[in-house]
């Protein structure tokens, strides 16, 4: 018996009657994400974003607003607290500690940029050559990085002690009677602190740069060797340019480390007598007995603006590559 299943075409949709206006059917939007995906995405992005806004951008915005007030941290902020640009005016023209602190931060930045960071990069380049004992050297240079800056400060405070410290004794200054007060002399204490900070910073940069060097295509270095380039030529003409993304990270990390310098100076002498830094001024004004929260916030805003420069450079580079 023949199969009687009909293969009739499916019924057509109803056509509008003659003379009637055809109303277009509602277009259905198609999406690759299911409802579950959307909820998950909202949670995964939303929760960190909310925390970021509450814990970082909220206080940042609050600091900016507070910088236009003379609020002392007690009671409500009223319109009477609003002082406009007076805090900034005082900071730039009347506050005797601001420009020394700004200069010290600048010196910190120059020191790290011109001395500590290049040393870290040099150690990375040397250790990348896989010389004997390279892992031991890596550990030795990296060890200070695992210490907090407070601990670093305490260690070096002991080393710099005028009569009992290692440095004066090692240099024979105690015996000869030419003791140097490394931390007490305001002409040199900043550089003494920078030496301590470099002890940690060099290891940090070294590890970052070494990781970057390991990712450079070895055939590029070999090609440069075959092309007749010396090691120095190979590094500056081939390796360094190829590591541009890592170089940007190094520069940004160096800038941020310089701008947020606080711990070592504070632990040594609370940032006085030649160790003034912007971050310490913020703390001293906002959290001390003076309770100049508004003024401290104004200094914080200046520090924020300065910090934006390396951050914007980094983000511009990242966005461009993306």
């Amino acid at each position: 018996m023949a199969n009687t299943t009909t293969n009739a075409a499916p019924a057509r949709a109803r056509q509008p009657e003659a003379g009637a206006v055809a109303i277009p059917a509602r277009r259905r939007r198609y999406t690759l994400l299911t409802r579950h995906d959307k909820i998950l995405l909202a949670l995964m992005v939303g929760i960190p974003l909310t925390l970021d806004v509450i814990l970082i951008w909220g206080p940042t915005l609050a600091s900016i607003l507070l910088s236009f007030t003379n609020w002392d941290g007690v009671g409500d902020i009223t319109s009477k607290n609003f002082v406009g640009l007076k805090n900034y005016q005082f900071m730039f023209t009347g506050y005797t500690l601001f420009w020394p602190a700004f200069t010290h931060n600048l010196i910190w930045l120059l020191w790290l940029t011109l001395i500590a960071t290049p040393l870290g990069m040099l150690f990375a380049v040397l250790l990348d050559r896989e010389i004997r004992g390279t892992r031991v050297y890596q550990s030795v240079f990296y060890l200070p990085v695992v210490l907090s800056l407070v601990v670093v400060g305490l260690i070096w405070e002991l080393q710099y002690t005028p009569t009992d410290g290692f440095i004066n004794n090692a240099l024979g200054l105690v015996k000869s009677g030419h003791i140097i007060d490394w931390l007490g002399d305001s002409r040199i204490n900043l550089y003494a602190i920078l030496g301590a900070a470099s002890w940690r910073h060099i290891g940090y940069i070294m590890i970052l740069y070494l990781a970057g060097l390991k990712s450079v295509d070895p055939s590029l270095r070999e090609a440069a060797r075959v092309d007749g380039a010396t090691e120095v030529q190979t590094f500056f003409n081939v390796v360094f340019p190829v590591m541009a993304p890592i170089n940007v990270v190094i520069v940004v990390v160096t800038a941020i480390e310089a701008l947020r310098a606080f711990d070592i100076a504070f632990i040594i002498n609370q940032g006085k007598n030649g160790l003034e830094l912007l971050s310490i001024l913020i703390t001293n004004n906002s959290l001390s007995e003076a309770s100049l929260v508004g003024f401290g916030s104004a200094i914080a805003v200046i520090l924020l603006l300065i910090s934006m420069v390396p951050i914007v450079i980094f983000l511009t580079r990242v966005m461009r590559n993306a």
Partner: protein
Amino acid sequence: MAEVEVRDIRKAFGGVPAVDGVNLVCHDGEYLVLLGPSGCGKTTLLRMIAGLEHPTEGDILIGGHSVRGLPPRARKIAMVFQSYALYPHKTVEHNISFPLEAQGMTKEERATRVRWAAGLLGIESLLQRKPRQLSGGERQRVALARALVREPQVFLLDEPLSNLDAKLRASARLELKQFQQRLAASTIYVTHDQVEAMGLGDRIAVLNLGRLQQIGTPDEIYHRPANTFVATFVGSPPMNLVPRDGRLVGFRPENVRLSTDGQRLEGASFACHVIRIENLGSDRYVYLRVKGDEGDTNVIAKLAVAEQLPVKADEDAQLSVEQRHLSYFDQKTGGRIAA
């Protein structure tokens, strides 16, 4: 140009020999191909000639002078890497001029040389581009130009066609051969592709497990292989090896004649059974099972489609090969023996 000689060269990595006592010579102006499977030591050998690896033992001579203790830049060699190793941050022009810059040449001299090399390889219009803006074939030409500007004694090429698609590889192979012939340059070329080797080389050195198996012209390698490894590595399909009378009888698939009427040629004949026939367009592959006292052996015959096929699948047949097309190998050592 110069002759390159490798004397009893050995290289071991952690006690494992990568190159194990190789002796060979690349004559002045010759195109010598190092051919072998992956891990045979051909690239290690090339890198030792370039100075990128230090031999454990042995010596390397370029132009009659030992270069064993010399760095790559002192050997007057140029190398094209498998990945081309073009500097990604430099333009094509600066990639080509970098070796001259390293030598301390003046800007004007560099510009002249770059223009000359770019003209020779037809890449003048690409000079301001970056490597990422180039196709595979263009990158290869830039790599060749960078090698050329140094006016080296020897060119070393490490599988430069392996990154190209099959169609481009054929035209690139022709360009490479013309390039070498124009310069009459001593060239050592590494490849695992036997078609490249047969097409490019004046002589081919076949390596396996770090040892030189045979060195000779493509004709010698193909028709008179020195051992069973060379016999089966070179040629597609590989040489058939059938045990008979305590030795292995080798013959190429294209030299097989098939019949069902018992007709025999002077040479060797084998009773066989046709397993399958494959039609590949211009050729036909006939898969056969040869019956023998020492067991059955699978054999492939390659016949032109234009030839009439005298057999059908699942049929008994007679396989014959002329004497001049036969090779004999020792069953234990695999080495070639007299008829």
